[in-house]
């Protein structure tokens, strides 16, 4: 009986420790959200979204150039990564089991684990160095490379969820493989694929490291793809390590905008995923 009590106690202790772990992880999350929202809301105003940065030392101004820059960078990245990611995802699911499909899956997972700063060096080497010029294009390329594996893997997974009967039905009606894929299978998996793209977008919109030496930064308003361009993340970084109170205030506002965007994407993705799971169940 003594031994039994000890075992029960140990078990209770274990359950409590697991519960405590959850609390330990949620406390920093709560603290981060608390400070980002608390400090960010105070700094947020219309000017922040509509004005350009003021000259150094002058308070006020906003980050309009950075918002436009991030929009352009993520747009460029999506333009490059969505076709490449979706098509390679289709290959992995359609030709699953082939050597190329296995290699692609492995490469996508590897690429997903490559530190973003390394991707930045790569983009610097192929898109900045040859032209001796930081550019929006180079930044878009770096972000695009980061997006590809995420989109490829979610596309693959979503396609594999489509019931086999749908494919068989299309093929039985005499459709070619391409026609079956593009008119039946991909449309059926579309909500999931779009969700994957949204999550990938949320992830790269918050990236800083690969932009530091590709798109660099720009205090001025620019939409020229061959010129350095500002982004919200790099701007937040610059402001965060600056000695000016007003810049730090704006850094918190930028962080709040980033977190809100990520949060919105996550909630959206979760809603869609829940629907997909209900749909196929």
């Amino acid at each position, binding site marked *: 009986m003594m031994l039994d009590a000890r075992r029960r106690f140990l*078990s209770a202790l274990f359950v409590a420790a697991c519960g405590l772990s*959850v609390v330990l992880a949620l406390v920093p999350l709560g603290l981060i959200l608390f400070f980002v929202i608390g400090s960010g809301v105070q700094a947020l105003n219309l000017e922040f979204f509509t004005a350009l940065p003021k000259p150094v030392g002058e308070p006020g101004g906003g980050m309009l150039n950075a918002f436009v820059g991030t929009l352009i960078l993520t747009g460029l990245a999506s333009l490059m990564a969505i076709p*490449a990611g979706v098509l390679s995802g289709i290959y992995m699911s359609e030709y699953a089991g082939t050597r190329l499909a296995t290699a692609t899956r492995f490469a996508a997972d590897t690429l997903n684990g490559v530190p973003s700063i390394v991707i930045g060096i790569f983009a610097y080497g192929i898109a900045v160095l040859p032209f001796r010029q930081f550019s929006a294009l180079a930044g878009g390329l770096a972000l695009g490379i980061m997006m590809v594996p995420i989109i490829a893997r979610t596309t693959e997974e979503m396609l594999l969820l489509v019931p086999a009967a749908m494919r068989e039905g299309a093929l039985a009606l005499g459709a070619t493989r391409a026609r079956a894929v593009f008119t039946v299978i991909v449309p059926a998996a579309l909500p999931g694929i779009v969700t994957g793209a949204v999550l990938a977008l949320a992830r790269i919109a918050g990236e800083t*490291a690969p932009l530091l030496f590709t798109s660099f930064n720009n205090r001025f308003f620019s939409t020229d793809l061959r010129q350095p361009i500002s982004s919200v993340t790099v701007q937040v970084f610059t402001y965060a*390590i600056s000695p000016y109170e007003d810049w730090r205030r704006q850094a918190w506002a930028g962080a709040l905008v980033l977190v809100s965007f990520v949060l919105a994407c996550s909630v959206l993705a979760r809603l869609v995923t829940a629907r997909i799971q209900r749909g196929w169940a």
Partner: protein
Amino acid sequence: MRRELGFRLVIGAFAVLVVGLVVAIGVELSRQSWLSIARFGLAFWLDRTWDPVAGEFGALPFIWGTLYSSGLALLLATPVALGIAVFISDLCPAWLRGPLVFFTELLAAIPSIVYGLWGIFVLVPAVRQFEIAMPELLRRLPLFSGPPLGVGMLAAALILAVMIVPFTSSVAREVLKTVPMAQREAAYALGATRFEAIRSAIFFARTGIVGAVMLGFGRALGETMAVTMVIGNNPQISPSLFAPQYTMAAVIANEFTEATDDLYLHALIEIGLVLFLITLIVNSASRLLIWAMGRTARPAARRVELGAAA
């Protein structure tokens, strides 16, 4: 048949592109760092002096800083991550599962730069208070030596730990899910307590769990912005948690645009190349373990082990 082949070739080209990207990164980084590789050879990684102005490039402090901070983060994050995985997969009521998964994954979705900003203005001052409050007796230990600056190894390890928890816990949760239910049921049937039954499941899933932990390690090694902002960026090798140090990713982020001559640039890219190779190895090993786990856990693939529950 021709049309089938055309379709396969077109989408196959994009699959090849993904594989090609990984290869291209390796090739490009080697190509852009040859000056440094040729000049210093292995000494680059054994020399502890980093003085770009004098043309001295020793990368040992960065290797040390990266491994030390990631190792500490792993130490802090692993128990918490596994606890969360077990709690979500085995212990918590069904209605709580969804929200908990959502919130832990949110931790992974918060951008690194936001962690860094929070680190500078909230975590670092808190760490400084903690360092000041440290009793004099303990301060004499090498582990806690040096002035209480706030920025340094401790702040970096803490922020890294928070950042890798969601990665390790979500993979560990998936791995625990693949353990056949019969494993736990058998343990319960033999009179095991909850802890003993779950322990048997964890034991069954040990390969995959090691994989999950390594995946977190891989994340920590390459993490850049948040670490750069709190570690203090001082290329020194110190066992002290209070000392400002430097990591491979951080030195690239800080000095890349300041690299005035080709040798300096190539030295930084060589650090990037090695970071790439290390994360490649760690991630591949981790995937391999998780994959191996998936194979063994297939029902009826092997007899259920009860030994661990007894």
